[in-house]
């Protein structure tokens, strides 16, 4: 995974709450067996509407998505994260993220910055008044800067450390393989296996 320290890019105001993963990428786009090429499916239904924010040239090259509360609800599809990253997003800002989406993002290096809804409203207004303006997201100081707005954001320490270092979970876990083997020795024998009868 690529490490993440700070990112500056065009901010995209998405004034919607409950952006579920079916909206981020509809199921018909989930049939690929790779992690790439999902950008076409990103917000597929909404992009057919010419007033949709990403259809505005000023925002089209955005990399910091600023969305309403409860972003990423619903299906566990990691394709939602791949679609956002394939399109070019590196950061999503929201006042509340769904658990699975947030976890998936952390594994892929997409930063989910949890910002107070009041600050989200200020950033929305700024980006709407200044289409194409940049937003800087600094993971070291945990701040979002947009024009004169400087807002703190929340991200848990462990995810922050992994993102800063660009570490992947599997190699971290494999450092403790002996612990796993020891645990397996202690598991109750009545636990089922999937082996056919």
């Amino acid at each position: 995974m690529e490490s993440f320290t700070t990112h500056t890019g065009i901010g995209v105001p998405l004034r919607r709450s409950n952006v579920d993963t079916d909206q981020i990428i509809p199921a018909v786009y989930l049939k690929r067996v790779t992690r790439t090429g999902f950008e076409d499916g990103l917000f597929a239904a909404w992009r057919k509407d010419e007033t949709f924010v990403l259809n505005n040239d000023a925002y089209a090259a955005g990399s910091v998505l600023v969305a309403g509360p409860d972003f990423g609800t619903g299906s566990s599809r990691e394709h939602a994260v791949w679609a956002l990253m394939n399109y070019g997003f590196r950061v999503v800002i929201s006042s509340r993220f769904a658990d699975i989406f947030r976890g998936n993002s952390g594994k892929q290096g997409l930063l989910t910055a949890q910002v107070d809804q009041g600050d989200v409203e200020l950033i929305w207004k700024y980006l709407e008044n200044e289409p194409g303006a940049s937003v800087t997201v600094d993971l070291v100081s945990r701040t979002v800067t947009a024009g004169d707005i400087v807002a703190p954001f929340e991200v848990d320490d462990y995810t922050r450390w992994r993102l800063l270092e660009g570490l992947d979970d599997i190699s971290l876990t494999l450092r403790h393989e002996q612990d796993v083997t020891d645990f397996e020795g202690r598991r109750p024998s009545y636990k089922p296996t999937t082996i056919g009868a």
Partner: protein
Amino acid sequence: MSGTLAEKVWDAHVVRRSEGEPDLLYIDLHLLHEVTSPQAFDGLRLAGRKVRRPDLTLATEDHNVPTTPGPITDLVSRTQVETLRRNCEEFGVRLFPMGDAEQGIVHVVGPQLGLTQPGMTIVCGDSHTSTHGAFGALAFGIGTSEVEHVLATQTLPLKPFRTMAINVEGELQPGVTAKDIVLAVIAKIGTGGGQGYVLEYRGSAIRSLSMESRMTICNMSIEAGARAGMIAPDETTFDYLKGRDHAPTGDAWDTAVEEWKQLRTDDDAVFDAVVDLDASALTPFVTWGTNPGQGLPLAESVPDPETIADENEKAAAQRALEYMGLEAGTPLRDIRVDTVFVGSCTNGRIEDLRAAASVVKGRKVADGVRMLVVPGSARVRLQAEQEGLDAVFTEAGAEWRLPGCSMCLGMNPDQLAPGERSASTSNRNFEGRQGKGGRTHLVSPLVAAATALRGTLSSPADLLDRDADAPVAAAAATEGSH
């Protein structure tokens, strides 16, 4: 030390705990399907890793499979299914392919085989893995990176959840089911209300439910934002499990049951949050909007967004009504549907099909309405056919299909056309979920069946009105007041 059910199961699976790091949790059962696994197997290949415990891993084909006879005609869907077959063969994972006697929706297959047992940790790259919590297992959906992690290590690094008690006390009125309970819970706490929590459903109304109804409730925990929902195991659980293919036998059964009986929240344990619901006041529930929290009792009308104080909620309601093609103030019972879907991991088990069949038996689906009945698994289908339910449905004019996820998410050909409206026993009414431009109302199997017969959102009590010509008494019997 006292603890909640969720904490007990969590603690029993901690492989490694270290200050400032997530717990490393052992996973007892890993379920796979074709959509969220290909990139995970690819990752293993790239890193030269194996599946650590193929004997704790099981795969089935469900999301893409057609529900009419014949092969998959969509090439991209077929590639995905064939990729799963290749991966399972290469890595030694047991697979139930299309046409197999054990094939079905992943969350129907696990429990019916007896693989889902109390006190287990169960994961799958599918958010409705919460279904398995009905057995007192800690079961939750994961993303593809986590699928790869579990394949490689049989563990997951996880931060502890908070716990929320959902107390449902009282007796359900006739015609009110598990689906109505969970839709009411989601409407009450909202789609983000359970975020960060494991929900434990408790109370007399929950204890009185069958295992299949408990699965319906736990299944939709994710729609309230909770990754997992749980119900303490009891005699109902043990009775369901006993004799199933993968359930323990002999002395091992007795040992297991003794252990399982300890799996309950201690009387002095403290939940981080508590929600109370009066089961006796519930009536059939339907959704009117585009998230599962936008629901109301069937007897109500489409809400007026202007009356919603929260600005974000108001905007969401306005957008939802526009998408759904509904006007504020319209009685929900007046909403006409084109399609009725009975199936999915929420309501595709035998009990659900029996419920729907009991309503349509001897009656006809309304003109212009298409009713699809899709069993959750090949076993459910076979059982239903042995009971003659297939004939009940087809004689009523419904379509009797092969098992799969089907119209719940429309990855196969079963989709709504743009602007089409459904009453669906599935779990999500998101924009475009059942097909681009499709409009979904989430309902119970009883409401789905009654709706198919009348053509408008209805409960079985509305049919009694018509058949017996005694509207007041029949409606009162099922609907109650609120």
